[in-house]
């Protein structure tokens, strides 16, 4: 059975769901950021698979993947800055203990 579009999309779905499970269940803030990166990578895989199987001569999906990478870089920089600020303020990065805005 040759590799087709479905293989890539299923692979991307599996990676996305692993990242989602990790982002929902972990308590370490850095691990949550890492899981968000996993999810963004899964989306990139499906974008590039669509680009090279549905519109192989247009490259639109690859352009979108570049923009996803730009936003991911900005997100990880600001996210780690927030984690470091939280660490400096609370001396803790466990998200269960940072419940200042929880009612």
């Amino acid at each position, binding site marked *: 059975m040759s590799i087709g579009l479905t293989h890539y999309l299923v692979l991307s779905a599996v990676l996305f769901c692993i990242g989602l499970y990790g982002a929902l269940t972990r*308590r370490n803030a850095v691990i949550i950021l890492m899981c968000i990166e996993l999810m963004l990578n899964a989306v990139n895989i499906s974008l590039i698979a669509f680009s090279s199987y549905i519109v192989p001569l247009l490259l639109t999906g690859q352009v979108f993947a570049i923009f996803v990478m730009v936003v991911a870089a900005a997100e990880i920089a600001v996210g780690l800055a927030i984690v470091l600020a939280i660490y400096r303020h609370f001396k803790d990065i466990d998200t269960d203990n940072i419940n200042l805005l929880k009612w």
Partner: protein
Amino acid sequence: MGLEISFWIMAVVMITAAFAVIFLRNVFHAALALILCFITVAGIYITLSADFLAAVQILIYVGAISVLIILGIMMTREVQKGNPVNKLRLPAAIIAAVLLGILVYVVTAAPWNVSPRLPLTPTTMPLATKLFSENGFILPVEIGAVLLLAAILGAIVVTRENKK
């Protein structure tokens, strides 16, 4: 044939590394597994004949983002207590499994209009014309530059020590 073998190797290594990211006890080992996952994603891009994006993936994710994550782990080393889970383990597993089931069902059932043409290679020149030409994506590129500048300034302002 070579494409299929490389796809399956990349897929198995990627899923194993992704599980390692969320199940390893040591946070630093989880970051190393994340780097392995990024490298295999670059390999998947190569099997999709997206050569420029594979290089960009190695440069940005393996080179920059993983270094930032390891920096964050090192800076918060005193309070790192491994990789604990919260109370949502069972609901999150159910949600992730249901979402995976829905996605796999939709992906396999949808009648994709797959083009018979082979994808364009090399992609660097066409991507550049696509991004920077007059009727291309020049405005989003400029907005991306502004976004990166805002992210740099935001990161500096948020992490700066408040000396009062």
